[in-house]
């Protein structure tokens, strides 16, 4: 038995009939073809699937598509505006905050959420603030630098 959902994704209203067990991350990836959001685990540890739901970072593997009915979702694909990178995307590029790139979409969304809550985080604040996202490549050092760079840019 499928359920109708209506979810606004990156500004566009998406209407679909989905299985009740369909996770939001699979709705985004398989139903809508928005494959920028990645799946790195099955226990909500890794954070690779982090997206914004109504302005807040959420691991999209912990939400059913039916739960997201009526909400506004932003994925990594919706972060740049008019072809211009978001400050956080630019900072990750500038500071070499990624290597294989698999955790990066989720990490960037997490970092954006952190700066909404704390616009001027210390190194320590950033390290704790992104704890819900795992990266195996960078040792986090340049991710921390990128987030602080983005914070400085946003303040300027």
């Amino acid at each position, binding site marked *: 038995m499928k359920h109708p959902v209506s979810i606004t994704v990156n500004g566009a209203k998406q209407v679909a009939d989905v299985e009740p067990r369909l996770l939001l991350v699979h709705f985004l990836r398989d139903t809508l073809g928005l494959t920028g959001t990645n799946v790195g685990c099955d226990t909500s540890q890794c954070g690779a699937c982090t997206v914004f739901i109504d302005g807040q970072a959420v691991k999209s593997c912990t939400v059913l598509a039916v739960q997201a009915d009526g909400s506004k979702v932003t994925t990594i694909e919706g972060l740049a505006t008019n072809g211009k990178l978001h400050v956080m995307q630019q900072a990750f590029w500038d500071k070499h905050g990624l290597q294989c790139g698999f955790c990066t979409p989720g990490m960037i969304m997490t970092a954006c959420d952190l700066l909404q809550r704390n616009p001027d985080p210390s190194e320590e604040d950033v390290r704790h603030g992104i704890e819900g996202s795992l990266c195996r490549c960078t*040792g986090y050092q340049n991710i921390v630098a990128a987030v602080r760079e983005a914070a400085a840019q946003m303040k300027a």
Partner: protein
Amino acid sequence: MASRILGSGIKRREDPRLITGTAKYTDDIVLPGMVYMSVVRSPYAHAKIKRIDTKKASAMPGVLGVYTGQQLKDAGFGPIPCAWVVPGSDTKTPPYPPVAIDTVRYTGNAVAFVVAADRSQARDAADAVDVSYEPLPVVVDGFKATQPKAPQLHDGVPNNVCFHWHVTGGDVDAAFKSADVIVKDHIINQRLIPNAMEPRGAVAQYLGATGEITLWSTTQNPHIARFLISLDTGTSEQKIRVIAPEVGGGFGSKIPHYPEDSMAIFASKMLNRPVKWTESRSENYRATIHGRDHIQDVELAAMKDGTIVGLRAKVWANLGAYLSTASTGIPTILHGLMLSGVYKIPNIHEDVFGVFTNTTPVDAYRGAGRPEATFMVERMIDLLARKLKMDPVAVRRKNMIPPFTDGYQVATGVTYDTGNYEGALAKALEMAGYEKLRKRQAEMRAKGEYLGIGLCTYAEICGLGPSQVAGAVGFGGGLWESAIVRFHPSGKVNVMVGISPHGQGEETTFAQIVANELGVGVDDVEITHGDTEKTPMGWGTYGSRGTAVGSGALMGAIKKIKDKGKTLTAHLLEASVDDIEYADGKFFVKGSPGKSKSIQDIALMANVAWNMPAGLEPGLEASSFFDPPNFVYPFGAHIAVVKVDAETGEIALERYIAVDDCGKVINPMIVAGQIHGGIAQGLGQALWEGAVYDDDGQLLSGSMMDYAVPKAAFFPKFELAMTETLTKVNPLGVKGIGETGTIASTPALYNAVADALAPLGVKTINMPLTPERVWRAIREARS
């Protein structure tokens, strides 16, 4: 100026697609008519398969096929080949069927697979496959498996010993007899789970009309994958195309050719439709290779003044249930040959037993054999220092190989290329403020506080390697690289390389090399990799060989381009070719730089070919193969500073200093990134990570909830510096940097904790050094 591009930390060209979510990883591939595969895995670590009932699963919605190992075998799909059999070790290679037929030997061993119209239908049906097992006794420990009455895994492998390999240099027994002091330790270098953030996956597409197979795969080495797939699927190599699209990290775990490749190809052939398989994380923990897992008995013999005279070791290397692609080479060649470290150790002997157990197969994980060697050596050096009441720096300096530029042969037989170990050590000590740290340590000890300072001075073998050596040590392939440089009429350049980076940034690094050498804009160069149909043969990205070997091929092609450019310039300018010189994108007549042709002029003239000298072919394209004359041996010195809370056992990592030398640095930003990541993984082993099996062979650390992949807040900011000692092994003088951090940081951190706890009389603590283990060790020492 072009020449400034080499050595500059320009931003990575890989990143725009990765930070915008437009990159395509294997699971992002969608093909018309594509269906999904799910694998049925054994819940038992060791059992006879009594019956596989697929009836219920076959009737479920969307199900297109349910297949067993017997069907694979009947269709001519052979066992997964082991690609590394070390000579002189009497290695037994029992068959590794891609899907178990009568016996399962580890939890996660595939027993059947299902294909259905969508992911969840495939998974539901996999759960409905009814398999009856008759459990057999289980052994998971690499030493216990060799003992009398241990459960036996394979026919023809008595006591589960797959091989016995040894390395001998000098006369170790005589050295031990002559020694003043001997220190010993029993080291458990624990099993780790690689945890590339992208789990494995495969999309197989068989085209019945042509008999061609295309496999999109999360592989570090598409050309090796194609070769091995041709061997065990009965498809001719020229009919197979392997594409490594964006690959989300590997760390060794994506080198092997895995059973799921065969299953997906088989299913695609059966159904004549593209088949996708994507691993879940908990599946990854059981079905993708693990790393390390050594039990080591080590002794070091020395004189009273600290001079080391011999090292003797016995190692039980747990290989898991089957031989994965490169597994036997890791605890032998990549481990035993590095037991001299950065020291003059005249007498070395090591026996290594490779052992089968009821666990996930073990293969290369970042460092692969070298961390297990470096930890052993660096640990013994510190134990010797303590025994002799010498500073660990003094013991290191006493035995360190002095700087050399023309090779240094150690007792294990390998010849290091170049080294300045004292230089790296001095720099690290200065950065750390070593003397001050020791003073602070003494002051804190007086107050009952435990500060620890740990060192690791290391050299490692990488840039694998000369093919002749590969053959001599039983590696089932070559270890050269190739590259094609192609100039278009407009002067823009396409470069195709055999290596297959997956996060290391060689699209950027290689573009820097081409721009620097050929005087074209860095943005005028496109680097293509990771597709057997688009790129020339290469042996893959692992063993820190991508730049160390791959750049050699690139430089060879560049030289051919320059040579051809000179010939054409001489013809066009009516000069003798001996009088033509090349610099910064210009060919010019010696002494008259005004008489010149730009490389763009030459690219156009060569491509239109209106005026070529007799005998010179049109076009400006060169292909080159590079087989290095030796491995490369990067080195460095790392220092960890920790504070241990003796009441709780908690370890606070205060500082981490790393000085590394990877020869010529092409992009310092990328090099630093490699070091950061390496350090994090090595510290992970020392402090948090460990794959744990219970006695029944169940993986207790079976998900990311149970296995501690380090988080950002676990680390301080690493303090980095580099020294630059060029190698002569390749044209640019570059050494590998992908694994050094992992190799150096585990012993540095461990030594720091041991140093902190020395006043309490704490003996060996097994890694990972969790607060509970540290607390128990302190309590035991105090009682």
